[in-house]
């Protein structure tokens, strides 16, 4: 059995891979933390408009340290910048954009994703202080919900499952998953493998996945720049 920690993509490489699918002219919300990294790898020549829950559309990159304006932040409370065409609005209008289906894509992190598209990403179910933020709205808002995630937990347990065991964020929402080992779509049959690292066999990938992997046509080799 292969040790996946030796071959797997870094979070930065996963973010790079997800970024390759950003569509020109699309409206995209990136979940706080890891998914925010996707913006850094937006391919040249594609115009993507980023939305953040706290009422900004079409913002730019992070400012240099020391030049932050703390009234100009994203949902992760990180400073962003203006771009020509940025717009401000209040929270109800912001979630009208989300809930009303106006976003093309939301890329979220996840604790677990199930083969029916269920996602768990807000509560470890272990007590402590629960916090949900905008996740439960986002999973119902965008035309496509994608997830970026390690393929397995730090303990090596599968994060892609037959059914989530943690409290759900939303049911039947996720369409695509970018992991540290593979790219998968979710269809009526469950997880459909689209890409995988050349260094992992189908059997080994299946062994670290908690639900059956289906194939439709060719499985492409998953590649990301090695220096990320």
């Amino acid at each position, binding site marked *: 059995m292969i040790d996946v920690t030796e071959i797997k993509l870094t979070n930065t490489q996963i973010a790079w891979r997800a970024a390759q699918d950003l569509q020109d002219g699309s*409206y995209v919300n990136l979940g706080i933390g890891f998914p925010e990294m996707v913006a850094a790898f937006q391919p040249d020549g594609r115009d993507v408009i980023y939305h953040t829950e706290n009422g900004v559309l079409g913002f730019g990159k992070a400012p240099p340290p020391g030049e932050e304006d703390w009234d100009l932040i994203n949902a992760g409370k990180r400073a962003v910048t203006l771009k*020509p*065409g940025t*717009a401000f609005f209040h929270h109800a209008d912001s979630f009208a*954009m989300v*809930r*009303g289906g106006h976003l093309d894509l939301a890329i979220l992190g996840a604790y677990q994703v199930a083969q029916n598209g269920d996602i768990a990403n807000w509560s470890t179910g272990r007590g402590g202080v629960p916090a949900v933020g905008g996740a439960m709205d986002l999973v*119902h808002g965008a035309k496509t919900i994608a997830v970026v995630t390690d393929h397995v937990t730090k303990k090596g347990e599968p994060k892609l499952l037959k059914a989530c065991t943690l409290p759900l964020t939303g049911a039947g929402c996720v369409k695509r998953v970018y992991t540290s080992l593979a790219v998968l779509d979710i269809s009526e049959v469950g997880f459909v493998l689209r890409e995988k690292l050349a260094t992992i066999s189908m059997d080994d990938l299946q062994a670290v996945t908690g639900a059956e992997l289906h194939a439709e046509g060719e499985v492409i080799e998953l590649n990301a720049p090695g220096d990320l």
Partner: protein
Amino acid sequence: MDKTLSSLSEAVAHVKDGMTVMIGGFGGSGAPIEMIHALIDHRPKNLTVVNNNAGNGHVGIAAMIEQGMIAKMICSFPRSADPRAFTELYLAGKIELELVPQGTLAERIRAGGAGIPAFYTPSSVGTELAEGKPSEEFEGKIYIRENWLKADVSLIKAELGDPLGNLTYRMAARNFSPLMAMAGQKTFVQVTKAVSAGEINPEHVTTPGIFVDGIVEVSAPQQEEALNRVKAAYP
């Protein structure tokens, strides 16, 4: 990103027979007259049209009615200084009317744009317009349930528009247009002045571009009220 279209006819070509079309304006203020007239040239049929009113005189929505393009009006106030176009067809049973209280109409359109399939309102409780609608008591008072309203295409008028679709409006011509922009599967806008991205202060954007699919500049647009005062007609 540039949502600028080459012509009004490119915009209205998205309207197909049988569609639901929201058209901005309250009376003449905010009515996208040139866009409506381009739609008349394009001549889709059997439309359901959502507007506060049901046309005035012989231009704009009244002219659409005269051309037999509208099967159903959803509006709050199908009266005007010269409501003949609608009145004659309505009394002859040739056009359907869904009468909605104005605040409920506005809220239903917003709900359509905001992904809220239904909400409760006190408006029309105890009246014939509430008949057949679910009702429920909240905090000791009765409310009725109303459903969202969505459009295949929304056609509106704005003051400034940039290539990303960010819009501002002019005074009371704003009225239903920002809501209809949200509720349209596609939203096309005639703007009085097309400006570059960044020319609209981000604080002053009234409709963010995410709600807009195409803009066309129509400088010096006609005003329905002024047209009716000179008894204009279209075509």
